[in-house]
């Protein structure tokens, strides 16, 4: 399922690049008789490019140096480091103890779930885009509704080529003053002029320098610069996918409105 979702999200991402507008039922029905479109596209994120324009399928030199810029950060849990949060309706800020913060702004540092080292090249060799009708029985009625749908089709003989897709590590980071948590790494001044100090800390096996595990000194016996974690961005489990996803079949996508028994 993970694969399927990944593939389909990237596909839909491309549709938005193309500036497509949502199609209503009427517009789709008017499109009957057309043969549809076959799409073929290569999506590459943070991978290098060969001279012939193809992806190297490995992380780009840019991302090796500017690794802070090759991350995806999500802040989904509405939580600050000191437990402050914002009420879902009033929009007011509250402390961990439920006391309203007069200034209206949480005083803690915002927490982020950061996917570090995001990368991947996906070659969608062929995706068919058609329209098709389907029928269902109207809710609380016996009448049949004819519904137009977008139909995506996949050809297993032209699999989706997934190369080195995933992230190197996953971490929870928190803002440091006015520096976003996902922006921490090496000491630098970013394009907006914000001076960012080196992200160092921890000790022993948790010691990190510039946001990467550093076992060059102070690590327990047996650990050193050749150890597995040394030089990797801090966090836990990374994910990596490689292979050819042979996908067969069609997916009809349609709006589920009030006439549908499930909506």
């Amino acid at each position, binding site marked *: 399922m993970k*694969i*399927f979702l990944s593939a389909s999200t*990237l596909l*839909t*991402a*491309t549709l*938005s690049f193309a500036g497509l507008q*949502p199609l209503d039922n009427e517009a789709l029905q008017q499109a009957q008789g057309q043969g549809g479109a076959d799409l073929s596209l290569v999506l590459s994120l*943070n991978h290098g490019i060969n001279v012939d324009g193809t992806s190297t399928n490995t992380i780009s030199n840019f991302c090796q140096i*500017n690794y802070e810029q*090759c*991350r995806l950060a999500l802040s*989904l*849990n*509405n939580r600050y480091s000191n*437990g402050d*949060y914002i*009420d*879902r*309706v*009033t929009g*007011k800020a509250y402390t961990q103890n*439920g006391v309203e913060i007069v200034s209206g702004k949480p005083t803690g540092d915002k927490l982020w779930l950061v996917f570090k080292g995001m990368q991947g090249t996906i070659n969608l060799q062929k995706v068919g885009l058609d329209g098709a009708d389907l*029928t*269902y*029985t109207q809710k*609380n*009625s016996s009448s049949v509704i004819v519904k137009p*749908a977008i139909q995506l089709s996949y050809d*297993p003989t032209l699999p989706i*080529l997934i*190369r080195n897709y995933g992230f190197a590590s996953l*971490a*929870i980071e928190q803002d440091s003053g006015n520096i976003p948590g996902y*922006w921490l790494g090496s000491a630098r001044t970013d394009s907006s002029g914000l001076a960012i100090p080196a992200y160092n800390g921890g000790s*022993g*096996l948790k010691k990190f320098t510039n946001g990467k*595990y550093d076992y060059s000194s102070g690590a327990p016996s047996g650990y050193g610069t*050749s150890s597995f*974690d040394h030089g990797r961005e801090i*966090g*836990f489990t*990374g*994910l*990596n*996918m*490689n292979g*050819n*996803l*042979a996908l*067969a079949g069609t*997916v*009809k*996508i*349609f*709006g*589920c409105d*009030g006439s549908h028994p*499930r*909506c």
Partner: protein
Amino acid sequence: MTTLSKVSFQKTVLASLIGLFLNQSVFALEEISDESLSETTGEGIAFLPENFAMVFRGENAGNETVANIVADRTKDTGYIRYIPVGPLSSSAPVTAGKADLFLYGLSISKGDGNLNNRLGSDPTIRSWGTADNPWLFKVQTDSNIPNFGNTVTPANNCTTTPDNCKVTYLALEAPRHEFYALSYTDTTKNVGNTIPVSSAAGADAYNLKLAFWADAFVRDPKKAEGASDQFDLISSGRANRLRLQAVWDGLSINGSQIQMFQTLGGAVAGAGGGYIKDTSYNNTLGLAGVLRFNSGDTRADGTSGFKANITTNGGTAATSSYVDDAGNVITGSADNTWINRYSPSATTVPGGTTTAQGSTNCNTPGGSAAFVCSYQIRSRTTRVSNAYANGTWTTPSLVNNGVLRFSTRETGAVQGKLDSPAVNGVTAPTFDANEGLYAYGANINLVLGTLYQPLMVNKDATSNNLVLEVAAIPNKPDLYKKIYTAYAGNTGSLTTAQIAEYQGSTCSVYACGTPIVVNGVKTYQGVNATHSSISIGSTQYDPNTGLMTAYKGADAVGVSFGALPTGTVSPTGQNYYYYELQNRERRRGSSNTNWQYCTAGNSTGACTTWGVNNTGGGLNFNSRSAAWKTSAGTSLYNPTVPQNGYSYNDTTNGTPFTVPSAGSLPQANSSWDAVNKQWVSRWDGTTWSSSSPAALGNFANATIGDVQQALSNTQFTNLGSAVIDGMLIQHMKITTKGL
């Protein structure tokens, strides 16, 4: 940064969202407000996969023909790797390494009943759901959800009281699960079978195949990735790999759903009265999942129920033979081949004493010196083979039921112990067809969080570790009554109406909360159950109480090591050994100088008729028609221990004799019969006194257990069924370590 708080949620929003993320090198998402999400309450995007199948092939497989994809499993080497980044916990022992896991060849297709094939020859799922019952991505608002405390401050969408709040959620829903027929005591509640039968109507959604195989290594965290000894933890020379294949044939995930929402508030630090004190519960990311992985209807009742079909047609075999002292089976010989055990011709009391005296006869020794007794003893061991020829054991049909199988043994050219496609480019291995752990009819229905009791993702307060927590249930009747179930039985002082206020129920394969009615017909199982249920194998289900139990008959199937045999299997012949020990005796009273021979005895070995006195030398048992009697006990002669020899000077009868020493009798001990894999007890309770083994009639019918036992010795071990039903998570908190 991309702020989307004012974007109304229409069909393309999701796509746009993801598209926007990919536009920049760094992406930072912020929450979508409830206000904008709730604008499209109840509607969503439906999608319907048809003729669907997928398999993750290796990156070197190239563009293949469908025929090749279906036929060639060695290229199932496309992988998902879980990279073990991050230091081990400081409390981890030095013998702990990191688990490096590669998941290969993930495939989803239509089930074909083959538990050793990850992709069938006809793999496409004709319709995964239907237009009436599709997959759904939707936004909806539920009302009357109690918050965590007794206050509506902060406001939290609670209209009047802290028990009537609204939660707006984003949900991904699989097609709803249809009904298997249910019969209630109140027949007006009965539910008909609504499971589709044609693949066009969505039947394939109840017969999926989910398969993958995996390699896991223990990585030495001190060594570099790619080093030749990277998996040789602490250089102990034990580098190895766990290889596993998982196939679930006949799977359905219908009825599953995942909800994502912002939790309510109400938790206040220091709150009393059993309300939630942990303010990290307030207004954070909440998740709720009904995760259903079902194999089908596994009810065992009725002739077509999900259980083995066992027939026991009675034993017809009676070929018998005897066993000599060396343990050799002598076939074709008469049953009455006896071996003399103690004094071939004449003897006295066994055990080495020169006299044994009984008050009245030789069977009650220890009295006054009234008699001198002497014995002759013999034994024989008879073997009856192929006692059960016609017992059969047939696996239940798997047409409407699924099996989850894990296996590890390879067959054919076995790969090296550190080979793995992602490590050194080998092909996918070939797995043994019958080995492994099988879960027949596995039905797993997990309720992981609800809108009332969300699953939350947080950061640990004192470290950067991730916390997964299923909320504790507060001592708040409005909330816990939506979760708890008032089971039948001791309900204390609760009235019927009060019992009905407890709305919790169990999500099993047969029901999962309030049935969903479409056009007046109970069509789909609900999704609002609060308790989980896990069952493997034959079950019994009572729809009146929602209680599922394991079927406990000997014909129950479920967990099995090795594949259950398909079709009919006759058990191998069973050998049974019968040991007989008999004696003859004579006595001579103190006032009688001549031997008196026993001419008849009863079934317990006691002499009932003594012959006339006989005089003269050379008298022996044979010439005096002495009767052989059953030796039913060991009081006079224990064949399992050695007997001392001795001499006796029979001055009265004029014939001295010597009894040689004898070891314990080889067939007398209980022993392990390696050929037939059974314990044989040749002494205890297996004696008879007639000249032929009349006790053959005792095993005219095999039992179900006999048949199962016979099969267990050869191919598989059936452990029967198992059920965990009505499982409620009160509070669960999982924290990662090491960060």
